[in-house]
């Protein structure tokens, strides 16, 4: 019993780590391709929020999403694909007007993405 729960935890950490590898490298690839670092961060944050919204919404509605999928795709990939630290550091480095614009863009589009994901989940349910 003890042994299998330890194995389960280690397997969970492995899934999160694997997803983290893919999420961080994908975010880096987007950053390299973006014309400005702030735009790369905005793109991953909005896309990742939409996808996590879809995943968690599906997990809440059905039992089709396994705990393993949540760990690998949600906690691992999507949470590592998006980032708050780069958003905060980039915002702090911008001139005040652009800093406000950056916060509004990330917050408004990120929240909207989650709301839209919920609507998509309802439509397809």
């Amino acid at each position, binding site marked *: 019993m003890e042994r299998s729960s330890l194995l389960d935890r280690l397997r969970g950490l492995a899934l999160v780590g694997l997803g983290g*590898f893919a999420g*961080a490298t994908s975010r880096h690839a987007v950053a390299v391709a973006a014309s400005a670092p702030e735009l790369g961060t905005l793109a991953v944050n909005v896309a990742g929020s939409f996808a996590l919204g879809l995943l968690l919404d599906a997990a809440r509605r059905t039992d089709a999403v396994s705990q393993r999928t949540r760990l690998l795709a949600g906690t691992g990939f999507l949470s590592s694909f998006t980032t708050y*630290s780069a958003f905060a550091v980039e915002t702090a480095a911008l001139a005040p007007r652009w800093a406000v614009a950056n916060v509004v863009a990330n917050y408004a589009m990120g*929240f909207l993405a989650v709301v839209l994901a919920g609507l998509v989940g309802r439509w397809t349910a």
Partner: protein
Amino acid sequence: MTDLLLVGLGGVAGAVARHLTATAVERDQWDTLTVNVLGSFLLGALVAVPADESLLLAAGTGFCGAFTTFSSFAVDTVRLAETGRPRRAALNAAGTLAAALIAVALGGAVGVALGSVAP
């Protein structure tokens, strides 16, 4: 190729550290707030130190980027608003932003201080 490997390995450590923090904190939104503020502090310090490119890729883009998360923060915030707690949602949004920006500034000050004493 090496760049991606550095970012990826940092990402593994960041994601695992975030997951361990979440299981240790285990209270609504506080785990996400904790990682976002700590990670912002660390990234603020890293970019202020005249660090080498490899360290920035592994510890900054990889670790801090993966340790912190915008998607969980956004889902948490929207969920609070949707479940009839709009004030807590607004507080989570504004509070995370304020705390993270202060953390970046503090981290920057620490980074500059460390950079000036480093050989």
